[in-house]
């Protein structure tokens, strides 16, 4: 039984998501591990065993305690002003001093009571309009009431979280754009999908969630291996990984041209172990630093320090330590273990290659930091006819190029370049309006459907029905000329 739906309980070792006022943070559930979230610190120990979705209050000593439903205490006859003509900002309306408030906090008085005291000691509160009073209370509650909700990770939550916290890690793929990709790609149980992403494994996780463990996924990866930091946050059950395959991008050309053999791969486990010993993670370090400089410039620099990155680093260090210990011991058992691992990796690679060679995938999803045309043109070779494909790019221009190249290639129809806009609303009695800020950009998508490619006749498409898709240059000239 999969414990993923509502009603699932928080277990030690889970990856949980903390939520407070629309702010999310993914954390591992560990005992005696201090968590800092939204200027509060606490331990998750007491949350273990509770149902996901429970809201907790942070009590003294950083302990969590399920929040009790409180009856509204403000039932007393409400007094309120009608406008602010007589409200003067003299900075003296709050009778409690900074020290008074600190003293209250130090005494361990509940946030709710502090808010009540602030209201009672505000000389202008009663003159404020009802709406202004409401706003005042909300603001103070946010500051003094220490609550946190622990929720089960999902694509909704993780994609919202990533977009808000570290958009650079996911190429600024906004959650509504990801939602479009999943729908346009007709991702569902039982399909065989090809996924090429450099979005920390978020897109892969989203695809895995929609496939529910049915079907297979081949993840194409650049460099030394696929990044799945975000994927691991989903907390998928083990069987979901049985049919998750990976294949290195650098072997795609050889696979397409038929020169791919596993001979080019580490064949002899012993020999390979030696090679790895010599390189000793040094080259790996070089590689990652190189990748980082290649990544986007200055603006993203601040994003580099973040929980997932730290985690990655920690994992790497842990491996290093392990490795050194192994070396010291010269333990044969470990060598044997390594051989088995190597052999399993090779077996998986052969499996992935075989899956790709069938050229019958049910779809292709691309969302990476790389120039998309070459990816698209080669990976589409592995997709069956009459199947959707979706390419994400943070920028529109590379997708224009994709569009042109695909039209030259043929074998695709219903090409569509699109973008979605997302607008959030404040809905309150007599105070409804769009939220003040909206996201400026969530990326662009190029989608289409594969069809059987007419070999040798690809040029004839120009005189056939599809020509209407791209208007004659004559027509656009007319349109663009000033009238």
């Amino acid at each position, binding site marked *: 039984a999969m414990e993923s739906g509502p009603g699932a309980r928080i277990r030690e070792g889970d990856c949980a998501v903390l939520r407070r006022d629309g702010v999310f943070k993914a954390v591992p559930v560990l005992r005696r591990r201090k968590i800092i979230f939204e200027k509060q610190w606490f331990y998750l120990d007491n949350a273990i065993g509770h149902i996901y979705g429970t809201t907790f209050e942070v009590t003294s000593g950083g302990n969590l305690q399920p929040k009790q439903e409180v009856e509204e205490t403000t039932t007393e006859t409400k007094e309120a002003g009608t406008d602010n003509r007589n409200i003067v900002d003299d900075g003296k309306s709050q009778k409690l001093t900074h020290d008074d408030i600190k003293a209250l906090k130090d005494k361990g008085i509940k946030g709710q009571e502090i808010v009540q005291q602030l209201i009672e000691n505000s000389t202008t509160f009663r003159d404020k309009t009802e709406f202004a009073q409401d706003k005042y209370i909300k603001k103070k509650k946010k500051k003094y009431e220490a609550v946190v909700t622990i929720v089960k990770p999902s694509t909704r939550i993780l994609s919202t979280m990533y977009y808000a916290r570290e958009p650079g890690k996911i190429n600024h793929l906004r959650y509504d754009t990801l939602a479009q990709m999943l729908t346009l790609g007709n991702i569902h149980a039982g399909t065989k999908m090809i996924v090429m992403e450099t979005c920390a494994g978020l897109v892969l996780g989203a695809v895995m969630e929609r496939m529910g463990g049915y079907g297979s996924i081949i993840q194409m990866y650049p460099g030394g291996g696929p990044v799945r930091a975000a994927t691991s946050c989903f907390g998928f059950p083990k069987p979901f990984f049985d049919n998750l395959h990976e294949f290195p991008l650098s072997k795609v050309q050889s696979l397409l041209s038929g020169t791919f053999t596993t001979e080019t791969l580490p064949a002899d486990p012993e020999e390979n172990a030696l090679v790895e010993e010599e390189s000793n993670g040094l080259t790996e370090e070089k590689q990652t630093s190189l990748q980082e400089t290649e990544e986007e410039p200055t603006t993203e620099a601040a994003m580099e320090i973040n929980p997932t990155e730290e985690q990655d680093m920690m994992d790497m260090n842990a491996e290093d330590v392990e490795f050194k210990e192994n070396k010291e011991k010269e333990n044969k058992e470990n060598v044997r273990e390594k051989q088995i691992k190597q052999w399993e990796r090779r077996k998986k690679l052969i499996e992935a290659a075989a899956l790709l060679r069938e050229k019958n995938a049910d779809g292709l999803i691309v969302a990476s930091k790389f120039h998309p045309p070459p990816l698209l043109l080669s990976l589409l070779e592995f997709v069956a006819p009459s199947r959707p494909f979706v390419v994400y790019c943070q920028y529109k221009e590379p997708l224009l190029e994709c569009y042109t190249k695909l039209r030259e290639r043929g074998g695709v129809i219903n090409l569509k370049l699109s973008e979605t806009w*997302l607008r*959030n609303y404040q809905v309150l009695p007599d105070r409804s309006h769009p939220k003040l800020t909206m996201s400026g950009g969530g990326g662009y998508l190029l989608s289409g459907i594969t069809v059987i490619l007419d070999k040798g006749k690809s040029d004839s498409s120009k005189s056939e029905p599809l020509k209407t898709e791209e208007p004659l240059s004559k027509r*656009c000239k007319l349109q663009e000329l000033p009238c």
Partner: protein
Amino acid sequence: MSFVEYGDTIKDGDTAIVFLGHESMFAVKVQHGTVTQTKYGVIRHSTDLIGKKYGSKVTCSKGGWVFILHPTPELWTMNLPHRTQILYSTDISIITMMLELKPGSIVCESGTGSGSLSHALIRTVAPTGHLYTVEFHQQRAEKAREEFREHGVEHLVTVTNQDVCKNGFGVSNIADAVFLDIPSPWEAIGHAKSALKAEGGRICSFSPCIEQVQRTCLAMEEYGFTEINTLEILLRVYNVRTISLQIPDLGEAAEDNSSAVFDSSNPSHQGSPCANLQQGTVQFKSGVPLREVVGHTGYLTFATKS
């Protein structure tokens, strides 16, 4: 074929999409002995369709040709017979993600309408989930049942012909998610709550008018829903065009051709403007927004029962 399982070849009884180019397409029910008329001529199902691969090019009687596509909920949405106003894929995609739907999810929906969203929901919750859809209009309910049968998904959906505001969804404590697209959703929030699992779940309501949203939000709050959030999603589609802009004549063309030299040094380079001195134009690729676009479909209000 079925809407939840890809098949390779076209079979008798399938629903297929005939693609004529430039978003011009329609759905056909494949039947032995039947013919379909297109502007390129006749398609004979027995010889032109049955046994062919999906994605094939089919030559029609007048020599023109079309592509035959495997049905998907998205293609169905673009080609289904409208019995009501329908939801399109842009809204559907965010609804699906925000309701956290996946294989195994139990969903309640009302009204069924033309079944545009229903097909997408069924696709996502298959093979182990279920859709309970409620439609108060009898003919529409029956028509939806018929389509689900034809599309091979009847085992994944239950259509109930009743008024959701009065009688609810006909199930209680089993749903992971509820979707409402009815004129007065606030009257169904109580029923939605009882349809959802005791442990909780997600709800979404679609309304075109802000006044409807207002009342719905109040009802959601009253019934203890949390995380109430209203949003709107808009699709912008771009036509990919090669644009030519005329170079203005400033009376110095003869002496100053530095810009032309710069551009012609790399004329094949994609994306960068390319000057053509003979024609006196600069050419470039652009994504041009459509002249008229959908500016509003509806507000989507999401909330959590916990």
